[in-house]
Structures are given as structure tokens and as C-alpha cells.
């Protein structure tokens, strides 16, 4: 659509989208690119990267293929990142809309809840949640979402409060539009763009949080993640730094891709909304 084309015309949007597209393809075709269980012992331990064509990125202390780990880890990172961001946005949008529309005591009460969640450092919150409930992908997703929903909630509410006062909303009331229709047709579509721009940042933060949780050993133990790979490599950091560096690089590339995409998105969305 037009938005996509505009996005591709900005350098940030093009590079960001490109990086993420590569990532998505890698994640999608992981079983093809690296068949078999990535956690199985595939070869000799601590093979140096770029020496053995069978293991282009080397192997870890137990002889597991690093490239397979990276490729399969991409799945986890993307899945968790996107799922957590969606959950955070969904919760945040609902709470923000409710607070912005209801006003009065409902607004006050909801904002105090938002305050509470914003005060607690989101990573610690996720950490505590996973420690208590136990580590599995759905729990990790929920834990990250719990730490991340407060910002979109506040932003949504601010946007609703601003849009509500615009003349076109007053106009919709004057022509007799039903309040529910006003909420969904006049207000919501105009509230979304800044919140969606925030979405990309939430995805990036979610990916990093997941990696951090895995690094601390609080991720799902049955799957390979970049975080756990970095943790694995910690013990041999001096002799075989590549074990931590490669998954670390993968994280960097992913997060940079997401940030660039969000920059491109906000450029495109703000130029559209800024009518003269």
C-alpha cells in the first residue's frame, strides 16, 4: 500500500524493513536452514568459526552448532518480541481509551494503576513474575507485557484527551453520531499513529528483555535463545568470545532494524498527519 512505498523511500524505513525481512525469513525457514534440534550435540566442542564448513560459526562447549542456535534463536526472539509488544499495546490501548473517554474517577483510578506499573522497573517486574510463576514462553511474554503496557496506556490516554477536543469530534456529535461510532471512527484511528510508533520501540525492548531473562537462566529451558547462548558463552569469554559475540551481534542487528523501522514509520506517519 501507499504507506509501505513511502516507508521504503526513507533510508531508515528501507534499511529497517530490509533487516527485519531478512530476520523474519531466517526465523521462518529455520528448520530448513538448520535442520534438526539446535540443542543437539552436532560436532566437536569449541570449533573456531570460519574454519569448518559444516559449522560456519563454530560450536559451543558442548559441541552445539552456533549457526543453528542463531537461526532458531531468531524464532524465539521475534515471536516473544512481537507477542509481548502486541499484548502490551492491546492492554495499553484498552486502558488508555477507557481512561481518556471515561474521565473523572475512572480516569483517576486507572492512572494510579498505570503509575504503579510505571514506577516498578519493567525488567525487575518481568524477572519477579517469571521467577514466581516459572519460565515458559507464554509466561515470559506475559511478564514482558506487564512491564511494557503502562507507556502505551499513558500515550493513548493523552492522545484521546487531545483528539476529543478537536472540532471534528464536536462536529460528529452535532450531526448526531452515536458515541460508540465516534469512538471507533473519529477518535481511535487518529489516536493510533503515535501509539504505533511506540510499538516498534516496545518490540525492541521486549526482544532485549527476553534475551536478558534467558541470560539469567529465567527463560524457557527447552528452547534455544540468543540470551541463553550469550550466557553459555560467558564461561569461555576469554578463550572463545565468538560464542557470546555472534548472538550478541544478532541482537544488535535486530534491535537496530526495529529502531530504524520505527524511525521510518514515524517520519512517514508524521508527514501524513501534518496537513497544511
Amino acid at each position, binding site marked *: 500500500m501507499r504507506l509501505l512505498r513511502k516507508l521504503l523511500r526513507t533510508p531508515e524505513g528501507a534499511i529497517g524493513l530490509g533487516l527485519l525481512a531478512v530476520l523474519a525469513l531466517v526465523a521462518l525457514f529455520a528448520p530448513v536452514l538448520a535442520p534438526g534440534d539446535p540443542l543437539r550435540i552436532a560436532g566437536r566442542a569449541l570449533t573456531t568459526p570460519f574454519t569448518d564448513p559444516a559449522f560456519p560459526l563454530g560450536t559451543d562447549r558442548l559441541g552445539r552448532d552456533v549457526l543453528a542456535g542463531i537461526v532458531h534463536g531468531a524464532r524465539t526472539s521475534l515471536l516473544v518480541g512481537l507477542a509481548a509488544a502486541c499484548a502490551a499495546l492491546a492492554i495499553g490501548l484498552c486502558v488508555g481509551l477507557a481512561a481518556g473517554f471515561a474521565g473523572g474517577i475512572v480516569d483517576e483510578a486507572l492512572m494510579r494503576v498505570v503509575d504503579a506499573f510505571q514506577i516498578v522497573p519493567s525488567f525487575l517486574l518481568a524477572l519477579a513474575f517469571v521467577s514466581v510463576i516459572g519460565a515458559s514462553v507464554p509466561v515470559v511474554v506475559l511478564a514482558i507485557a506487564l512491564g511494557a503496557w503502562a507507556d502505551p496506556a499513558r500515550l493513548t490516554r493523552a492522545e484521546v484527551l487531545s483528539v476529543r477536543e478537536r*472540532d*471534528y469530534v464536536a*462536529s460528529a456529535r452535532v*450531526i448526531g453520531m452515536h458515541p460508540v461510532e465516534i469512538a471507533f471512527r473519529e477518535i481511535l484511528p*487518529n489516536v493510533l499513529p503515535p501509539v504505533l510508533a511506540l510499538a516498534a520501540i516496545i518490540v525492541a525492548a521486549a526482544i532485549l528483555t527476553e534475551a536478558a531473562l534467558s541470560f539469567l537462566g529465567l527463560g524457557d529451558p527447552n528452547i534455544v535463545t540468543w540470551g541463553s547462548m550469550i550466557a553459555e558463552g560467558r564461561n569461555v569469554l576469554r578463550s572463545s568470545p565468538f560464542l557470546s559475540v555472534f548472538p550478541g551481534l544478532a541482537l544488535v542487528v535486530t534491535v537496530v532494524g526495529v529502531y530504524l523501522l520505527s524511525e521510518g514509520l514515524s517520519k512517514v506517519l508524521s508527514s501524513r498527519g501534518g496537513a497544511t
Partner: protein
Amino acid sequence: MTLLDVKNLDKRYASGGRTVTALDGVSLTLSAGETLGLAGASGSGKSTLARLLTRLVPADAGTVRFGGEDWLALSGGELRRRRARMQMVFQDVLGAFNPRATVGSVIEDPLRIHDIVPKAGRGREVAALLDRVGLPAAYAARSIRDVSGGQRQRIAIARAIATRPAMIVLDEAVSALDVSLREKVLELLVALQEESGIAYLFVSHDLAVLAAVSHRIAVMDAGRIVESGPAAEVIGNPQSPAARALVGAVPRLIGQEDRNAV
């Protein structure tokens, strides 16, 4: 026939710890097919009155009878249905239209909400309304952002007349337009009034604009109506300081007197 009968409207709101009186015992009437010009400087309360009459803000006291009914007592679905009879045109500083709307959807909304014509006939009705305000029917597909200020105001008028209202409140409807466009929009409004008998409550700080289209003029100052009467009288013989200030504020062109004598 009296269409609108306003008695003793009060409106106060709290601002920074103090109570501001926006409207203080405002009373006025509007007859079918006539234009009442509501003049005043900023802060005189005229916009508050416009918003109160269109039920955008609640009143603190007073009554409004519109079309024989207690207008302020209506609420919910009943109010929404009755709204077809009183429409509004805003100042249009970009904020008057949903940025995502198309010209067609903006005019179709009231047709749909009040079931003015069945679904099949709406396209034609939109085209007819665009035609009435002097815009080509092809504009219906355009995004509202691809339309100039003057054209947007015509679209706002098309939307306002779509429900065949008895009355339209115009809140500084031409103030943001270039002078040449202003004249055309005023001519359109007068023509529509002559064709359909719509009454206008025209709010403006520019007395010249009101002089062009009003039958009667009411002058507001500090939340009160301080003077009212036939347009020519209020302009020709202003009694209150507010009215005199408004009359004096209209810029005159050098040699204007000679031009009008021709």
C-alpha cells in the same frame, strides 16, 4: 414563527481556582428563515453560547425551546435524532474534519445517521449536495486534506444542510477564509436561506460579515447581550460601548464612500 426561544441561559466554569461566568442570563429568539448575527469580541461568550445551543456543553441554568420542544431536556437517542434539525458549521482551522475522511464520507455521514435517503440513493444525494454548494460531484472521492480552505467550508455547509435542518449555527464560519472566498461563501449561505428557509445563528467578531447576512444583530459583552435589534439599526446607531467598539473596529478602505455612492 419563533423557531428558537432562549431564556436566561447561564454558564459558569472553573478556571484556575476562580469561577468564570461565560454566560449571564442570556435570552434571545430566532424566527424561521431569518439570520440573527451574534457579535462580540473574544471572551464575550458568543462561542460558548453557540456550543451550548448545539448541546456540546451543558447549561447551568435557563431554558431553550427549539421547534416547540424543551431542547435542553433531550438526551441520548432522542437528542441524536432531533439533532438533524439544528446543525453547525465550524471555523475550520484544519481541525473541523477527520483527517482520514473523504469528502463523500463527510457528507454521507449525516445522511446515513438520520436515514435521509435509502442506501442506494446516498451517492446521488451526496452529488446533489456538492452541486448545491458549487462543487463538482467528482470531489466526493477526494481526501479531505486535498481540498482548499474555501472548498472545505463549502463541504462543511453541504454536510450541514444534508439533514434539511431548520437552523444552522455558524461559529466564525468565514473568519479563516481569504476575503474573496469569504464573499462567495456568504453569497452561498444567503442563496441557501432563500431557497430552503433555513434560519442562521451567525457568530462573528467581524461586524461587516454580520452586516452582509443578518436580519437582526445581537451584541454580546462579558457574557451578556448588551444590545440587539434590526441589523441596520445596531450598525447605524450603536448604543452600547461594545457595539460602538465593534462598529469602529471595521477597517474602511480609502475612498470607500465614493465607491458605494456609485
